[in-house]
């Protein structure tokens, strides 16, 4: 069985090549393999469909393969593979075998499939990025597809992620994926957990660990505390935490390992934010991404219908609001212009500036995030971490006096970068590029308007997120945030950043109604990177304090 797994992995991998003829070979091999399998279990199907739960092992095996073929037929960047896979599925269906069909439409629940880049219709640059991603991972995940709106960023993102997971680094491969699972599970992000459970097993991870954190090595268990604090209240991180990890006899972490782990944790926390923020749907070949049941009305995914993504109801609720809200963008632009001009005339007093930050910080706490569905996370994910009740707690509300983190005293550019690059070479550079990229990314458009300088808006979003984490920029007037970000947008940001699992499609739709989906994804990228940087800053500051 083990060997077979290895073999099949190799088989899928060979599809990643850019050379059409060898790709054709590979797909042909797969077709033959699948057909052979189909024929061996040929006689069974008439019996089996009635009891899907008790499918025999070969049947399950086949189902997995079929799911994979289905994924390829939809998501492979190479057209020939897509076509051949669809054809294969049709052939199999003709033989009377149940074939899977994808659940949900498109990579995102929030964005109609037709808005997202069609894999078949992308420019050559995006195509080549997709091909690289496919070659590296054997799949093109939904996250990449959605990020495909912003190819420059996607490239930088994939390069970093690839380096973190697969290239030279102090942690063994299965540890990396397991840490990814831990981090994603903290936010109950089943999408990322499923994805990395597969990867984890593929690189030879021990399946026992997946039963829960308590089955994992002591060393990883110790990371649980750091994971928890970083995800929800990074400002509570002290050098004692770091010391506890580094000085634990035989289970202790080395500094380089710790940095690697911290980067992974923050990466996956923020990626979980993105996943929820954009409503990423499960991968087709993973659990929950496909079904073998025939389509019938009762089987529609509830969310599909609710979100207008189903086959029948194509009515986009946005249209209804468009009329009322058409002034929104103009108002925002007007405000930006005013701020730009007024800045020199009306100078707020220094005290005023200081209180504005505090007010914004406090107010951000009062933004109500949850739709009060305080149900615990589903069992299968919560087992990857401890203490599920621990969440983002608004520090000012609980009366804790947390000193404000001054960005000028510990910044990524001056301090964080040097520390990361010293202990985990190259990664500092990559993260630096990624932060720069996302911070400066602009198309100079807002909704339908062209040639707009959006730097002010971007900075407001970035600083608002850092403000929620208590990071203050002396040179920023936090009054601007109030002017530029309206309440529904603030709710969205706050939810995504602090408790992403509570994001709903309504939130996604209720902010910036006139903006395009690509712009909303852009916002999500900003949220994700700003959150990552904020978490990193706290973690790195604690490590620096430990070192001095």
């Amino acid at each position, binding site marked *: 069985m083990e060997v077979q797994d290895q073999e099949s992995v190799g088989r899928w991998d060979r599809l990643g090549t850019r050379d059409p003829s060898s790709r054709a070979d590979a797909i042909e091999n797969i077709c033959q393999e699948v057909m052979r399998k189909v024929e061996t279990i040929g006689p069974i199907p008439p019996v089996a469909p009635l009891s899907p739960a008790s499918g025999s092992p070969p049947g399950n095996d086949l189902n997995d393969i079929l799911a994979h073929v289905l994924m390829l037929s939809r998501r492979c960047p190479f057209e020939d593979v897509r076509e051949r896979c669809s054809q294969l599925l049709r052939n199999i269906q003709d033989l009377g075998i149940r074939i899977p069909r994808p659940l949900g439409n498109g990579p995102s629940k929030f964005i109609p499939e037709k808005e997202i880049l069609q894999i078949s219709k992308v420019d050559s640059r995006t195509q080549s990025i997709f091909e690289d991603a496919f070659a590296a991972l054997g799949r093109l995940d939904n996250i990449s597809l959605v990020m495909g709106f912003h190819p420059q960023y996607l490239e930088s993102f994939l390069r970093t992620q690839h380096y973190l997971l697969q290239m030279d680094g102090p942690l063994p491969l299965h540890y990396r994926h397991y840490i990814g699972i831990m981090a994603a599970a903290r936010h109950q992000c089943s999408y990322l957990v499923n994805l990395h459970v597969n990867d984890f097993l593929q690189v030879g991870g021990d399946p026992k660990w997946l039963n829960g954190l308590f089955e994992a090595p002591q060393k990883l268990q110790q990371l649980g505390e750091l994971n928890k604090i970083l995800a929800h209240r990074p400002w509570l991180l002290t050098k004692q935490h770091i010391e506890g990890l580094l000085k634990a006899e035989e289970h*202790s972490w080395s500094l380089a390992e710790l940095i690697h782990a911290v980067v992974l944790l923050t990466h996956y926390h923020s990626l979980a934010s993105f996943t929820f923020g954009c409503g990423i749907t499960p991968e087709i070949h993973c659990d929950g991404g496909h079904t073998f049941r025939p389509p019938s009305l009762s089987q529609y995914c509830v969310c599909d219908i609710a979100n207008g993504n189903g086959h029948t109801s194509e009515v986009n609720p946005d249209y209804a609001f468009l009329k009322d809200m058409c002034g929104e963008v103009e108002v925002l632009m007007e405000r930006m212009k005013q701020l730009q001009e007024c800045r020199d005339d009306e100078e707020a007093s220094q005290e005023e500036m200081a209180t504005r930050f505090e007010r914004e910080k406090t107010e951000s706490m009062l933004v109500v995030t949850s739709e009060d569905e305080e149900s615990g996370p589903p069992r299968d994910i919560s087992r990857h971490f401890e203490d599920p009740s621990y969440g983002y707690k608004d520090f000012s509300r609980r009366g804790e006096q947390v000193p404000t983190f001054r960005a000028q005293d510990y910044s990524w550019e001056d301090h964080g970068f040097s520390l990361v690059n010293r202990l985990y070479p190259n990664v500092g550079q990559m993260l630096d590029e990624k932060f720069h990229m996302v911070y400066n990314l602009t198309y100079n458009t807002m909704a339908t308007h062209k040639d707009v300088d959006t730097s002010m808006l971007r900075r407001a979003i970035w600083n608002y997120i850092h403000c929620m984490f208590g990071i203050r920029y002396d040179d920023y007037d936090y009054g601007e945030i109030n002017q530029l970000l309206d309440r529904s947008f603030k709710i969205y940001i706050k939810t995504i950043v602090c408790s992403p699992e509570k994001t709903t499609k309504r939130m996604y739709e209720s902010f910036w109604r006139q903006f395009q989906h690509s712009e909303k994804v852009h916002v999500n990228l900003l949220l994700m990177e700003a959150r990552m940087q904020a978490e990193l800053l706290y973690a790195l500051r604690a490590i620096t304090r430990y070192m001095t």
Partner: protein
Amino acid sequence: MEKMSRVTTALGSNAISGRTMFCHLDAPANAISVCRDATQVVVAGRNIFKIYALEEEQFVEKLNLRVGRKPSLNFSCADVMWHQMEENLLATAATNGAVVTWNLGKPSRNKQDQLFTEHKRTVNKVCFHPTEVYMLLSGSQDGFMKCFDLRKKESVSTFSGNLVCNNSFMCQSESVRDVQFSMKDYFTFAASFENGNVQLWDIRRPDRYERMFTAHTGPVFCCDWHPDDRGWLATGGRDKMVKVWDMTTNRAKEIYCVQTIASVARVKWRPERKFHLATCSMMVDHNIYVWDIRRPFIPFATFEEHKDVTTGIVWRHQHDPHFLLSGSKDSTLYQHMFKDATRPVDKANPEGLCFGLLGDLAFAAKESLITSDANRKPYPGGDRRYPMFFFKKPDPTEQFAHVSSALSVFETDLDSHRMDWFVKTAQLYLLSGKPFAELCDHNAKVAQELKRPQVSTTWTMLRIMFSDPANLATPGPNHNLGKLGTLPLMNSFSLKDLGSGMGAESRLERSKGESRQDNIHLEPGNSYISNNEENEETEGSEGHPEYMFGDAELDDDDLYSMEHDNQTEEQEYTLPQEAFQLRHEIVDNPSAPEHLQQDKADSPHVSGNEAEVTCLTPIESFSLISISQPLFSPHLPASFFCPIVREMLSYYAEQGDVQMAVSVLIVLGDRIRKEIDDLTQEHWYMSYIDLLQRFELWNVSNEVIKLSTCSAITCLNQTSTTLHINCSNCKRPMSNKGWICDRCHQCASVCAVCHHVVKGLFVWCQGCSHGGHLEHMMNWLKSSAHCPAGCGHLCEYT
């Protein structure tokens, strides 16, 4: 003010005095600046803004500029500068983007003079013009530099550091990190940027920079014009480099480069010393370094007083190179006297020594030492010694730069097998995977076969001491770690005695036939020579205690009474034989650690002398018996032996047989590990691993790394953990899963003979790049001259 002017006149005759001193500030400092007459220093930070007077013995707080009930952000300073012409004038750069000037002559408590709020982001740097009273320059995070005329309410000109946006998607605003007026050119200033660029501007032309070049990768945190040399600009960056640029030529030319260990936050030329500059770092490293840029590998002087990163450095007086002031995040302000600085060069080992793979030895030392020594002691017999001399241009005025070393390379006879024993031992030793007793026995046998009886005996004894499982659990009661720490473990590396050192080299060649444990360190300080007279002396004195440890502490009667308690143990003893053999061998391979001072002209061949020393001293033979004979006493827990074993390990390590020390350490594992402090262990491991790698014993070294319990050692295996292979068919990189190339879908490394995937050693012809299993290829090419793949290439297996 009266006092100040008085001091000013006094300074005319260069009469600053003082000592190394410091004072506590209330808060971390971000920057410091000194007034022209060097009597006062201003310290600025987020929560501090004070002026201190520099007195003979101490700092005295003169003035607190941070006034008001709730000080505004304008007091939160990123940078401060004291005007060098006008002693009442100060400027600060605030983190909120304000540029503030202060007039100390104001009668009110609040000395704030002017406030410019033109920058949108944090101002990183302010700089007064060196000769023009009213001109102030600022550089900010928003990418702009502004020039202010202090007589006006707003800036007179703005310089934009932004590149022209030729890419409509990416228009980055690059932060200005530092601005500096040129000392000599009235109109010129330099600005350094976060993207690694440095720009030169003419103050009269705000539309465009005069010149731009990329100085560093990553942000350039600081720059400083040379006070005397018109064209020199020093820059320091996040890439841990300090570079000196010659700006007089058409293109900025890098003339010196100093590599530091952390990102460079500040750089300041030392007054009156053309080639010196001081640097401090922003992260990790707390020291201040003064470099001679002509000797970039070692700092000229180091100030190590600060306990957190140094944020500001300034030379106290423009023409006095002996005083350096520094402020730090640890909330202290220091005055460093140059005479109190640490000179790393004094501690650095001026001699270098390195082994070549084939036993060659390269040795670099002060040129004077080498030549005098060589003259005194010419080597007989046409030795292969090639002295090479490297001279630096001597400059009598600079004590530091005057360095010259000579490099000598000693070749050794290629036939010599001196290190064979080391390699063999490394390969044959078993370090894990079997019960403890078996490991010891095995290793003892290995040592025995390599004619190293002392080592062999040690293994046997270790087995006896520790093999009772009942005693293994109890940890050693005597932790004499302190004592161990003081042992001069690596004294064999010191090259103090150069004279004898050179002598040793000649001996080294002559003693090539011997297989000796001590040869591992061939450095001249330790001259081992197998010399019989010497041996006999040392058997009784030096080597003896190692074996005789039992005598001092154990009652012999006790031991003997235990003798036959344990039946199972008994059969393992083949002692009489062993002891007998040992008696011969011990002479052959003495463990004499004595340093010979005399070089015996005709070093005798060892085996030839065996007969002379067949009879050992009675003590020696007795000791062997008395130790190995008695069976393990239940009254003596294994921990009882720990101090002795520890001493034994240190002894071996000192002798240069770090192999033995590490092997025992690994085999004993927890039994001894706690007895020896981590640093020492780490040191041994490192030395052994280094040696193994020099002998290309990669497997053994990896095993040692894996088995070691030091975290610092196991870390070694966590870097470079990836192996990249290319497919042999399509020459593309392979993904890391499986053996099938994902591009051409062929098994990547197929044996040309058996057509199976090769999953181990793969040998291939460099001519046609076909290959396969090592054995298959060997067999094939024995019978055929052509490539087994049928490509027609005439392969050759050598």
